[in-house]
């Protein structure tokens, strides 16, 4: 049992929900991308809390792999934003309707 476990969990939940609200409400693609990173950070805190509560390292490895995937996602995602900006002249998510019917 970690001391103050509930405070860590509350922090994790709060960060996750803040990120989700931002991802829904904002229209700028880069801000939405950063909100997703906030959600990942919140999940990471929850993983590490349970990992140290259970004397295990699985949660820590999960966060390490999430970080690696987030780095790859940042590289590809920002390249896509650059391409969209060249094509449409904006990165407003409401204007990205190529795949909508």
């Amino acid at each position, binding site marked *: 049992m970690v001391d103050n476990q509930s405070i860590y969990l509350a922090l994790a939940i709060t960060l996750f*929900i803040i990120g989700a*609200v931002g991802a829904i*409400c904002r229209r700028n693609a*880069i801000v939405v991308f950063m909100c997703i990173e906030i959600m990942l950070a919140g999940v990471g805190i929850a993983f590490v809390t349970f990992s140290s509560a259970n004397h295990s390292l*699985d949660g820590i490895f999960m966060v*390490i792999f999430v970080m690696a995937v987030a*780095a790859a996602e940042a590289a590809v995602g920002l390249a896509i934003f650059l391409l969209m900006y060249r094509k449409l002249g904006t990165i407003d998510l409401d204007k990205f309707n190529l795949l909508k019917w």
Partner: protein
Amino acid sequence: MELVFLLICGGVAVIASLLVIFARSTLHSALWMVLSFFMIAVVYVLLQAQFLAMLQVIVYAGAIMMFIIYAIMMLNLRQESRQKTGARISKIIGVGSLIVLFLELMLVSLGNNLTPIPGPVSEKLVATYGRMAVISNFLFSDYLLPFEVVSILLTAGVVGAVVLAKRER
């Protein structure tokens, strides 16, 4: 002492994350994001995950935020920031259900007394070999396959980004 640090750093992380959402300029959002990541690194230190705290500072606050700030500087975003966001019904429903989810998660995770299951990494093991040696031992034995897969994924991601962003002549 730990509680004081946790409350200060957690509070600053939450406020900085809120400012990421509410900041008018995208660059300001990115800078608040860096502050939030540093505070999350402190929380990792408080949770005895020092290695993860270092990775958080180097990978997130260093590399990923650098990427994002470069991208913001390459795009001309000044005219977008003026537009007003219309409150649409889908957004209201989305935020409302997220608030319900928040309350539910808080009730479930804070109300119950969660009993831990002791895992393989005991205090004695950490005291004998050091936390870093234990982590690397697990990383290169039990988690070797995911490690290699992630390295291939990162290489593929970098190649993909270069191919996507290249100008066609």
